[in-house]
């Protein structure tokens, strides 16, 4: 599938910017996102092709302006809803719950 993710050879994206002494994760939410993905893979309810396909369907501007693990979040939410593991209303209720709890 052609799309914004197919970045090989694209011009104008700026310099490579390595970070010295980079940690494995930059924030607690990245740890949790990583683990959610690995765990749903291992549980057989999600796979790498579904993961990739959902990322490749992201709007190009959103893809380029969001971080790596945000892509993962987008993909897992979308695929779980598409596969009927939960629906949008349940996800929205979960958003409301965590917002209330803070």
């Amino acid at each position, binding site marked *: 599938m052609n799309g914004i993710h197919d970045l090989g*050879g694209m011009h104008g994206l700026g310099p490579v910017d390595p970070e010295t002494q980079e940690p494995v994760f930059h924030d607690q939410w990245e740890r949790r996102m990583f683990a959610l993905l690995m765990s749903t893979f291992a549980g057989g309810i999600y796979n790498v092709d579904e993961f990739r396909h959902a990322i490749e369907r992201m709007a190009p501007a959103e893809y380029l302006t969001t971080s790596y693990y945000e892509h993962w979040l987008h993909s897992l939410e979308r695929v779980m809803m598409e596969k009927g593991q939960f629906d949008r209303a349940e996800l929205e209720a979960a*958003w409301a719950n965590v917002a209330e709890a803070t």
Partner: protein
Amino acid sequence: MAGHDHTDPPSDITLRVKALESLLLEKGLVEAETLDAIVELYEHNIGPKNGAQVVARAWIDPEYKARLLADPTSAIAELGFSGVQGEDMVVVENTPEVHNLLVCTLCSCYPWPVLGLPPVWYKAAPYRARAVSEPRSVLEEFGVDIGDDVEVRVWDSTAEVRYMVLPERPDGTEDLSEEELAALVTRDSMIGTARAGQE
């Protein structure tokens, strides 16, 4: 849904991930202990120190090196490293004539069992775009001086095949132990964006 306005997700990414985790927990699709164990494993146990052991062994043991190049997945497993994102490994050897560089132009494919999770720059747009079109410029920015007479080979990873660079053993290391040699092998030297022993 008729008459229902969609709520926007929380702008705070932390809350959004927390909501997703709570929903998956509630549905019994994931377990908290498993999530914690996964984080622990990838944050503390799996990383480039694994790959460095593979490289150091290949430098001191020609028979191991031959196996590593011929059947990388098995040779790496001999040292105890295997699993997710390393099921089908290819090891490419740097020589005075050839310098190898790894990239995943489409995303972030990377040999987890030997290198751990990839750094941000490896997953970010500039490296993915430029590693294939101007690898020599990228290498120069990383401080790797490649002569015009040296061939640069760029390996674009796929969801199945994962590459690892076997860097050149630095000169003057004949007397070092395997452990001391492994300490010279950095993450970047196994991606190809550094030489082993490079400061």
